[in-house]
């Protein structure tokens, strides 16, 4: 009762990742799509840290830390792009931002 199987952590990570994929595919708001990506990154972090526990090495934590750094950089640039898109198009609906299609 005192020990959680490692596979539970990994399956939780997979569930969260799938939820992120679902949000990425089904949502039409740029900001929500972007947040789904963050959810996927979080799911991956959980897997990294679970593996770090299993291997008794801190390296997995370092990977997760780098993921956080990259996510922060990505959020800054991505939100700046979203602001610019909104300024030029006054919409956040991804179907209406399609000038590069065709």
């Amino acid at each position, binding site marked *: 009762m*005192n*020990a*959680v*199987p*490692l*596979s*539970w*952590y*990994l*399956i939780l990570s997979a*569930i*969260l990742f*799938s*939820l992120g994929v*679902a*949000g990425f*595919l*089904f*949502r*039409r*708001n740029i*900001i*929500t799509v972007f*947040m*789904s990506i*963050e*959810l996927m990154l*979080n799911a991956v*972090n*959980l897997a990294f*840290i*679970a593996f*770090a*526990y*299993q291997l*008794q090495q*801190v*390296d997995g*934590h*370092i990977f*997760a*830390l*780098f993921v*956080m*750094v*990259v*996510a*922060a*950089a*990505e959020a*800054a640039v991505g*939100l*700046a792009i*979203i*602001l*610019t898109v*909104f300024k030029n198009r006054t919409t*956040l*609906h991804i*179907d209406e931002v399609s000038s590069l299609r065709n």
Partner: protein
Amino acid sequence: MDVPLFLLFAAIAVACGVNLVVQTHPVSSALSLIGVMGALAVLYLLLGAEFLAAAQLVVYAGAIMVLFIFVIMLLNAGGEKKSRNRPRLAAALGIPLLMLFLGIISFLIQRRVPSSMTVTFGGFTGGGPGDLGRTLFTGYLLPFEAASVLVLIAILGAVVLGRKEID
């Protein structure tokens, strides 16, 4: 205590994750994501990653998500409109295929990870700030420097994109 704690916070994380995908309003989605992050921070603690649990709160929930909320409030984004031209095939097959994918992954994990591998709270004590810092600044110094350059570039990019006039 480990199993109930894991189940509780895993349930919170999954519920908030589902809510993120289901809600149409970006603010509700953002709040659900913060809920996921908070639950994950607790799970990190259970896995012995104290520093990352704190970093998760400070960096993810405290800085990145504040930026999201700020942008959503600034743009005063309302609820989402229905998509007009979504392919019918994708709409019908999307969720079943995703469930299938999840099922396969879970099956593989169950098969490949022996049940003897378990996690007990306190089973790994190398996740404190000291251990992390020592590894980061010895073995991973070059990636660390590269990441700092990346962050610098991201700052510059955000500043350039955020200027008033773009010509």
